[in-house]
């Protein structure tokens, strides 16, 4: 692939969550906000997975042995990592990304690329989209992120770095949030950067380059490709020469299609009534349907998972003739599955998931069925639901049969992953 394959200037976003693991922990430990917090192995041989900006002030950074971190910052709060929880939140974050473009490539749990070239006509330019991504991530999961906007991936990634909060000895300076590397001014941005900012410049390459008197990207670009190749070898040399010119033709490769979409929840106290279990199923189905629609998918196979108070777990599945993406269609599929299960022995966890995912299509029918609400009617009701949630938030609307204590409790991925909250009827924040 060459640049000429892109007659249109691409617009790539690199979104990087700010101190992701720590921020996730702060969501459930708000009392720790403003304090140095370190996430990672807390044992004697543990390493730091992430450090809050406050901890970074003391020189704590990721991959540092926890014992060193403790010495540098003895008053920091050390928390064990909870990867499962981070993965859940990450999925929610990426769901938000996919609302802006189908071309989303995950680099890790907390960063990803979005190709929004095609979305600009609808949503505004890259910077506008970048701000909207930040706002929506904040609204949906309560976390901040930094966005780099550029004509390619490499520059977008450098851009997000420039957008981040900065930690200095004098304190923490908030970042700009969104930083654009403007088309036409790429080199102006790139060349003053230290050469180790380039991907592929590790310690060994760096020392070779330093011997050639290269300190900045601009110095490297000035050498010319032949010299660079001579010094670093063909593959690495050409790669770095390209980067030094601000060129990067790699495409944003969307992640492999998701295999299933599901929600499950462990309850504060076991459920014994079928009606209670059913209410949870309706609520979870609504969450699954909502996520399916956000990704533009439908599910052909619906699975109900029940864990009893004995920890015995059963799963029942049904495969439907066509892909469904509305809560009523999902609950209708689950109802007969629930009939095969006796809730009387106490239900600890309920899960609903959809698999066999595909772009939903709808077979139109010849007759109006007067006594049945048609799938098409549910589909338009569902999209109205999405509009309301899009404008007023997840808790704005939900199925009446899923209500408890007069409040709508929308499903959010991972909300209960660490087990039940103390008062399950209290509604969501």
């Amino acid at each position: 692939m060459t640049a000429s394959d892109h007659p249109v200037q691409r617009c790539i976003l690199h979104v990087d969550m700010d101190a992701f693991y720590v921020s996730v922990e702060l969501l459930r430990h708000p009392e720790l906000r403003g304090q140095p917090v370190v996430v990672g192995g807390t044992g004697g041989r543990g390493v730091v997975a992430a450090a809050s900006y406050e901890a970074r002030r003391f020189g704590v950074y990721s991959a540092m042995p926890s014992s060193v971190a403790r010495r540098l910052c003895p008053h920091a709060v050390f928390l064990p990592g909870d990867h499962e929880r981070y993965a859940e939140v990450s999925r929610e974050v990426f769901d938000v990304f996919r609302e802006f473009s189908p071309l989303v490539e995950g680099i890790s749990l907390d960063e990803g690329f979005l190709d929004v070239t095609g979305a600009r006509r609808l949503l505004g330019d890259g910077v506008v989209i970048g701000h909207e991504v930040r706002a929506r991530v904040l609204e949906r999961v309560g976390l901040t992120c930094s966005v780099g906007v550029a004509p390619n991936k490499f520059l977008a990634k450098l851009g997000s770095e420039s957008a981040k909060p900065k930690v200095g000895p004098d304190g923490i300076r908030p970042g700009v949030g969104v930083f654009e590397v403007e088309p036409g001014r790429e080199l102006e941005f790139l060349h003053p950067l230290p050469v180790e900012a380039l991907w592929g410049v590790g310690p060994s390459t760096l020392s070779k380059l330093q011997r050639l008197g290269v300190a900045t990207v601009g110095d490297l670009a000035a050498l010319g490709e032949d010299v660079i190749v001579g010094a670093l070898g063909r593959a690495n040399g050409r790669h770095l020469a390209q980067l030094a010119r601000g060129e990067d033709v790699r495409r944003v490769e969307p992640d492999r299609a998701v295999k299933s979409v599901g929600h499950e929840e462990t309850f504060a106290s076991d459920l014994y009534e079928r009606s209670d279990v059913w209410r949870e199923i309706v609520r979870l189905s609504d969450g699954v349907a909502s996520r399916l629609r956000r990704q533009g998918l439908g599910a052909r196979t619906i699975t109900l998972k029940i864990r009893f108070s004995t920890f015995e777990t059963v799963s029942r599945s049904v495969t439907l003739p066509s892909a469904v993406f509305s809560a009523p269609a999902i609950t209708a599929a689950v109802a007969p599955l629930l009939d095969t299960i006796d809730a009387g022995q106490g239900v600890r966890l309920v899960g609903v998931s959809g698999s066999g995912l595909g772009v939903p299509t709808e077979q139109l029918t010849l007759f109006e069925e007067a006594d049945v609400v048609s799938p098409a009617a549910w589909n338009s009701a569902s999209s109205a639901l999405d509009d309301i949630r899009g404008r007023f938030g997840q808790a704005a609307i939900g199925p009446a049969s899923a209500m408890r204590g007069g409040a709508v409790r929308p499903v959010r991925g991972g909300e209960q992953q660490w087990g039940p909250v103390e008062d399950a009827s209290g509604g969501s924040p």
Partner: protein
Amino acid sequence: MKFRCERDVLAEALGAAGRAATGRTGSLPVLQGIRLELKGDRLTVTGSDLELTVQYELTVDGQQDGGMVVPKLTSDIVKSLGDPKVELLAEGEEVTVAAGRSRFTIRPWAYDDYPRVGSTTASSVTLPAADFIDALRQVVRAASTDEQKPQLTGVLLAAEAGGLRLVATDSYRLAVRDLAGTTVLGTDQQVLVPARALQEVIRLASGSGELTLRLGERDATFEVASARVTTRLIDQPFPNYRQLMPQPAPNVLTIDKDAFTDALRRVRLLARDTIPVRLHLGGPTLRLEAISNDRGTVSEEVDAQFDGTELTIAFNAEYLASGIDACAGEQVTLSTQRESNRPAVLRGLGTDDYFYLLMPQKV
């Protein structure tokens, strides 16, 4: 009861009757079996679930009159025998099936428990089998198999303009065939015959010259060759299909039936389950396309003649293939409205006694 007969003849009769025998253990478990009755050299083989009854008459070498109800398994036993001559003997609580050096002793159902089924008193009409079976074949494919909607699981036979009209719909497609000059019903009379029974009629009628039809108030009987299919009629109103009769269409595609069928067969490798086939209409080629998220994409072009405005329209590929297959002739026409959510109509070019109307898929 005792008789000898050809293995293949008996296997076919047991197979046909066995398909009608019930698979469920209901109030009459004996209906899971196949009833055999011998009078002289006439053996009558009956299978029924009370809704549908298939009776098969064959000539055997009868040695002792009588009757028995054998389990469906007997059908598999007879089919599997090595020797082409079979002997059946019912004695006491046992039925013996013997052929060559094989001998099965199996437990029968109680003969006296088997209900009286398949009798009919309605007057008969005899017509050439080939035309009627062709018409059935064209229409029965559009009937529903969803037992939740019994009114859609049948084929409507109705008197229409001095002839017979056959109609079936599963609410996604509608097939209508007119058989001019065939009068089997009184004016304005119509019956709704379960598609399942008609599929059995199609199966049993192959090669037979005539078909005798008896249409009663509650049931219908079809006699072809040596088989008789009796079915209870569906006592539910058929949907108002007349409101769906094809409108004049601004877009008409004319295309070679075999080429269309071949292209569609390839596209269907990806256009399965819920993935539709998209037809891009416009210009002298028809482009077929299927896009599957996890498998890939396929695109194929077929020469065609098109009058109208460009349109992309998506269909369930199986329904579309079934409709093309049902059309007579070497060329078919696909007529569409200007909108991709309105029904399309397939016909054999130059034939006006059949159409297959198909609702598109919304993508």
